[in-house]
């Protein structure tokens, strides 16, 4: 056997694009993002066909949605810090950051509960109601998934299993996914609450 390359001293974990999980997370963001684009496209498609928009419904009440938006935006700086702490493998700060991000994840979910009635239309009233609930529901599943993931990861980082480079890398990837949950919300927020007012 002709040994040409020596791999002995390679590291056993890496952050960001060096890690497989980061790429996997990116892959799922891209496909879920495509889902968002198509759902939003369906909204616009139905809107262009309708004689008026919203279709036989009052304008949606934008307050709960705006509070969700502000809460999500407020979580971003801490999320960036958490990512940084994870990369430094600073356990006390990572634990604190994860606890805070859990709270900052649950808070918009609670307000989201009030967002559905604020749409002022039911999913089975007409196509406008169907597609607004669809968009909001689609984003809610993402919110819920990431919060559940954050809760499990927070619990994990308080056990002995947390002391592992790979787990810190997981925290970093989880923060990466949260950015996606926040960013994907902004166009949906605009479409749901402001587009009908400008249309």
């Amino acid at each position, binding site marked *: 056997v002709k040994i040409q390359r020596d791999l*002995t001293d390679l590291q056993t974990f890496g952050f960001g694009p060096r890690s*497989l999980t980061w790429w*996997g997370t990116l*892959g799922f963001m891209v496909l879920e993002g495509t889902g968002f684009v198509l759902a939003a496209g369906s909204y616009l498609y139905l809107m262009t066909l309708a004689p008026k928009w919203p279709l036989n419904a009052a304008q949606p009440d934008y307050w709960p949605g705006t509070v969700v938006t502000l809460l999500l935006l407020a979580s971003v700086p801490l999320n960036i810090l958490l990512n940084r702490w994870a990369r430094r493998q600073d356990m006390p700060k990572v634990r604190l950051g994860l606890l805070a991000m859990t709270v900052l994840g649950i808070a918009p979910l609670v307000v989201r509960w009030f967002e559905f009635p604020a749409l002022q239309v039911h999913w089975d009233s007409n196509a*406008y*109601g169907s597609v607004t609930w669809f968009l909001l529901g689609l984003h809610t599943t993402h919110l819920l998934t990431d919060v559940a993931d954050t809760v499990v990861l927070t619990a994990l980082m308080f056990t002995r299993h947390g002391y592992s480079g790979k787990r810190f890398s997981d925290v970093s990837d989880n923060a990466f996914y949260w950015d996606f949950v926040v960013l994907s919300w902004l166009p949906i927020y605009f479409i749901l609450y402001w587009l009908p007012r400008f249309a």
Partner: protein
Amino acid sequence: VNSKKQDVRDTDLAPADLDARLSHVWGDPPGIWGWLTTVDHKAIGRRYVVTALIFLCLGGLSALVMRLQLGTPENKLVGPDLYNQLFTMHGSTMMFLFAVPVMETMGVYLVPLMIGTRTVAFPRLNAFSYWVYLFGGAMLWIAFFVNTGPDAGWFSYVPLAGPQYGIGKRSDIWAQMITYTEVSGLAVAVTSIVTIFKMRAPGMTLDRIPLFVWAALVTSFMIVFAMPAVMVSSTMLILDRLVGTHFFNWAEGGDVLLYQHLFWFFGHPEVYFIFIPATGIVSAIIPAFARQKMFGYTVLVLSLFGTGFLAFGLWVHHMFVTGLPRLGESFFTASSMAVAIPSGLQIFCWIATLWDGKLKFNTPLLFVFGFILNFVIGGLSGVMVASVPIDTQVHDTYFVVAHFHYVLVGGAVFPLLGGIYYWFPKFYGRMLNERLGRWNFWLAMVGFNLTFFPMHILGLMGMPRRVYTYQPEMGWGPMNMLVTIGAFVFFASFLLLAFNVWRSLRDGQLAGGNPWNAGTLEWATSSPPPAYNFAHIPVCTGREPLWQTPDTPVAAGLRVDKREVLVTTLVDGEPDLRDSSPEPSIWPLVAAVATSVTLLASIFTPWAIVWGLLPVGAALTGWFWPKGTKEDES
């Protein structure tokens, strides 16, 4: 964090010792437990391909029943209701349960071997995807056997499949089958992309990636961008049916064409993610049997990207008779014709390679010739139906049925059969019988053309697709009988393949590592490969590394006391990390069962999604929670 414990590396071990240690670490537990918990990409890839071939058989049998019914006018064998279920089952099975999975998962088996690594990037996700696919396919066929088979065609158009006309649970079964297969297809696509990006052998720069792997990569990207469309459309369909939404209900501001747009935004690329992997198979077979490096490697790679890109701009040509604006239709005519350019470039590169080569006429190459001939016929009728006036004339006739079978069977099944003859020795360690192989090829060629060529003429004579019978005065009887005979000949060719496989598994000639003297890395290991694929990670020295350096140089320094893989950089394939790889686990199966039960129950009550979150969440937590084994050391 990076604890320096005593670990064992593969650098200085004697071959026998290395093999024993790696076999212990990478092998599965014995017995049924090992079968259920395996995350070996070869076991899962084999399982996927075999399952897909079983679905091919079921889809083929449903076609044979239809052909028996249509063989003579006013035949009483099958009634209209069962006939509707049969053609829907045939199309749905062939597209969602056979063609896409088999093409995607030939890669699950072959890609890690071709790029010189030990497994895929996410072995457990890969295992999970198989179980979900299996349960979804089983659900569809069990439903069919209890008279709840979908009956609105494989694209399940509204309003026929909607709440108003699609009574019972038939269309719900179809819509949920889509969810299962797309979840599984997307999981495999992401796994493949990351595997190809980050786990290539050292030295495998972008311009050394085998063409089959490029095809798998382009296909995976297409799946990532296309499959969400069918998930959106089938979810909207099932919501319309189950909770009273109005996405496709014209009376409440919905639109039926929205369904068609979403479906075909997926459905047209789908044709290409069946066809593109098939071109990858062709590009693997031709150099091996022409004894010649592939002519125009860069052109072929760019053609794959070109086809993949253009495939997203063609979907409206499935909707030419829906009354869309003329200008829009003209655009889609142009783009439909444009896709012939990259396909044509590929064909010229293959012909140039064959022209220059010293050909060995083994069965795989015969199937490649069959592919080129049949696919070109399908391409020509494709250029015809790309034009709006011709399409308007032949829409929903047997001409279209003939066209897409030439493209899909000629363009994908022929290469696949060639691929089976080519890689069977790698999968199972024994050669398929060459004499039976030739018979297999000629029977397939004659049967296929006898079945599908007369359909062009039947279509031009005005015979519509999806009718369960016709009157003798139409004059379609003799031609239909010919088609039916052809279908049985074609089916016989698959029986011959099954016989060949059965016989060769028992006493086929032993293959050895590289029976065809091919140049890519999957042939650098034994046949079948050991659980760990390669004793040392190979170093890639060119596009056909085994031809350039028969004594493959290797990289060493990985641990052999736990599952460790090499992660390399995206562009240059430079070693970057020694990464842990997951051990066998029951959790992917548990998660797949929880997911499947939830999806199935949701057909009967939407609340299933709510209470199903608990078992799914619990299973995923069990999956991800570290077990304190060596896998977690890093």
